[in-house]
C-alpha cells in the first residue's frame, strides 16, 4: 500500500514465536562468548563492536519493527557522545551520570526530530531526518564546546559508582557488556510486548492500524524516541570507551554505516544488527592495516548482500531454518 515504507520492501522473515530451546541455547552461548571475549580478543575492539551493535539494534527497532528508515541517527549517537564527554570533562560528572545525561539528551533530540519527521513516510521521512541531522552536525561543527574539528579528546573514564575504576580495560569491558545486554534485552522486551505488536501492525498496514482505533503517530514517535535514547546510550558509552567525541560520530556517514550494518545483519531480526555490526567493525578494523580499500570491500559485500541475500545474514539463516522445519 502507499503508506508502506522502504523497510517493508525487504520484508523481514517472521521470527519464531516464544522462547524455544534453540533460542535459550543461543542466548547461553552468546552470554558465554560475551564473558570470555576480552580474554581472547583485544577488549577495546570488542567494546567497539558492542557499542555499534547496540547502535544498530536500536536503529533496527525503528527500521525493522516500525518500517521507518531514519537517515539521521548519527545525531543521537554523536550528540549523546558530545554531552557525555563534555559533562565528564567540564563538569566532572561521574561516568554513570554522564551516560544518563547523554541518553536523555538523545531522547529529547529524538522527540524533536521525530515529532517533525513522523508525519511523512518513506523517502520523505528519510530526507527529513537526514536534513535535521545535518543541521545538528553544523551546530556541532560551530559550537564552541564541541572542540570543532578536534572534538573533545582525552575524556577521563572515571570511576563507576565512585569505586569501579573504568581505567582498567577489563572493568570497562564488563561495564560496556552490561550496558549492551541491558539495551539488547530492552529491545527484545519491547519487540515482544503489546506495544511491539502494535508497532509491527503499523509497519505492515498503517491504515488498518488506524482504523482499529490506534493513533499511530503517537506509537511511531514513541518508538522513535526509544530508538534515539538507546542510540544515545551506545554513543555515550562509546565516548567513554574511546575517550573521544568527534564530528565523525554525528556525520551522515555514521548514519549510513548503521543502515549498512542493519541491512547486512538482517532487518527485523533481533540478532541481525549485532551480527552486521560485528562484520562491519571487523572489516574496518582488520582491513585498515592491509592494502585493501575498506569502503570498496564493504561496498562490494553490501551489493552482494542486496542482490543475493536480501534478508541479511541472520534473516537468511532464519529463513533456511524455517524451510527445514
Amino acid at each position, binding site marked *: 500500500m502507499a503508506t508502506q515504507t522502504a523497510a517493508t520492501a525487504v520484508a523481514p522473515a517472521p521470527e519464531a514465536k516464544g522462547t524455544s530451546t534453540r533460542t535459550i541455547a543461543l542466548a547461553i552461548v552468546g552470554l558465554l562468548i560475551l564473558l570470555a571475549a576480552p580474554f581472547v580478543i583485544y577488549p577495546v575492539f570488542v567494546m567497539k563492536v558492542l557499542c555499534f551493535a547496540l547502535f544498530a539494534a536500536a536503529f533496527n527497532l525503528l527500521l525493522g519493527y516500525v518500517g521507518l528508515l531514519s537517515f539521521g541517527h548519527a545525531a543521537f549517537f554523536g550528540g549523546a557522545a558530545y554531552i557525555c564527554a563534555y559533562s565528564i570533562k567540564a563538569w566532572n560528572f561521574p561516568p554513570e551520570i554522564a551516560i544518563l545525561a547523554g541518553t536523555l539528551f538523545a531522547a529529547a533530540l529524538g522527540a524533536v526530530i521525530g515529532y517533525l519527521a513522523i508525519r511523512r513516510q518513506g523517502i520523505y521521512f528519510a530526507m527529513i531526518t537526514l536534513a535535521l541531522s545535518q543541521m545538528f552536525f553544523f551546530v556541532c561543527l560551530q559550537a564552541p564546546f564541541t572542540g570543532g574539528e578536534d572534538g573533545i579528546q582525552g575524556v577521563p573514564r572515571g570511576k563507576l559508582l565512585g569505586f569501579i575504576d573504568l581505567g582498567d580495560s577489563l572493568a570497562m569491558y564488563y561495564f560496556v557488556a552490561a550496558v549492551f545486554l541491558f539495551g539488547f534485552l530492552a529491545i527484545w522486551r519491547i519487540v515482544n510486548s503489546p506495544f511491539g*505488536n502494535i508497532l*509491527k501492525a503499523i509497519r505492515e498496514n498503517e491504515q488498518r492500524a*488506524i482504523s482499529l482505533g490506534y493513533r499511530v503517530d503517537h506509537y511511531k514517535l514513541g518508538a522513535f524516541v526509544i530508538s534515539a535514547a538507546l542510540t544515545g546510550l551506545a554513543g555515550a558509552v562509546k565516548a567513554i570507551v574511546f575517550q573521544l567525541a568527534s564530528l565523525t560520530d554525528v556525520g551522515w556517514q555514521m548514519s549510513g554505516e548503521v543502515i549498512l550494518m542493519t541491512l547486512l545483519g538482517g532487518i527485523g531480526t533481533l540478532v541481525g544488527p549485532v551480527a552486521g555490526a560485528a562484520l562491519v567493525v571487523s572489516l574496518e578494523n582488520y582491513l585498515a592495516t592491509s592494502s585493501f580499500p575498506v569502503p570498496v570491500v564493504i561496498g562490494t559485500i553490501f551489493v552482494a548482500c542486496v542482490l543475493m541475500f536480501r534478508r541479511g545474514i541472520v534473516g537468511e539463516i532464519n529463513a533456511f531454518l524455517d524451510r527445514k522445519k
Partner: protein
Amino acid sequence: MTEPLLEVKGLQAWYGESHVLHGVDLTVHKGETVTLLGRNGAGKTTTLKSIIGVIRKRQGQISLKGTNILPLPLHHVAKRGLGYVPEERGIFASLDVHENLMLPPKVAEGGFSLDEIYTLFPNLAERRRSQGTKLSGGEQQMLAIARILRTGADVLLLDEPTEGLAPVIVQRIGDVIRALKEKGMTILLVEQNFRFARRVADRFYVMEDGHMIDSFRADELAGRMDSLHETLGL
C-alpha cells in the same frame, strides 16, 4: 422506530477529481443487518470507506449515535464504536492469531472475550499460534471479523465478507453473522453474493453509479426480484 444508530445523509465522496458518491442516504437501526447491493463499481465499498473515513474527501453528514463523525479523524471514529472489516481483511501477517486478537484497543464495554471468540470461531482456537500468513482465506475472514468483535464496536461495517471463499466457508460466515444478529449486533454489509445477503439481511439498499436507487425490507424482497434481476444482473 427508534433513533438510528448510524445515519448517513447526502454523502458525497471523491477519488481525487472523480466524483464517485452522489448524495447517498441510509440508516441503520440498533440490532439490524442492512445490506448494500449493487454491481461492481456501484459505490458500495466507497460508501463504507467514506463512512469509516478511509476516504477523506467527502461531504454530507454521518451520524453515529447522534454525533456527526464526519470531521473526526479515522482513529476517533473507530473509538466511537464503528468497526470496519475491509474487503482485503487486513490481517497482520507477522502476528499470530492470538496476537491479532489481542491487538485491537477496547473502544467500549461489551467486546467479546477470547473465550467467546474461540467459541464462535472454533477454527481460530485450533490455529491460535499460526501466523496470519498461514491462514486460509476463510480463516482470515473469520479472524478479521473476530478482531473487530473484540473492540466492543456498536456497528460492524463488513465489506464483502464472502469474496473469494468456498461455498462451505460462505455458509459458515453466514452462520456467524446470524449468531451476531441474535446477540443484537448492528451490521452494515456490502455484498455481491445475493444468495448470501438474502439469508442474513433485514433491509436492503441498492446502489448504482454512486446513487442509492432503492431500499426495501427483507419481506418485500419477493416483489422486487424483477427489478433486482435487471439492476444486479442476477
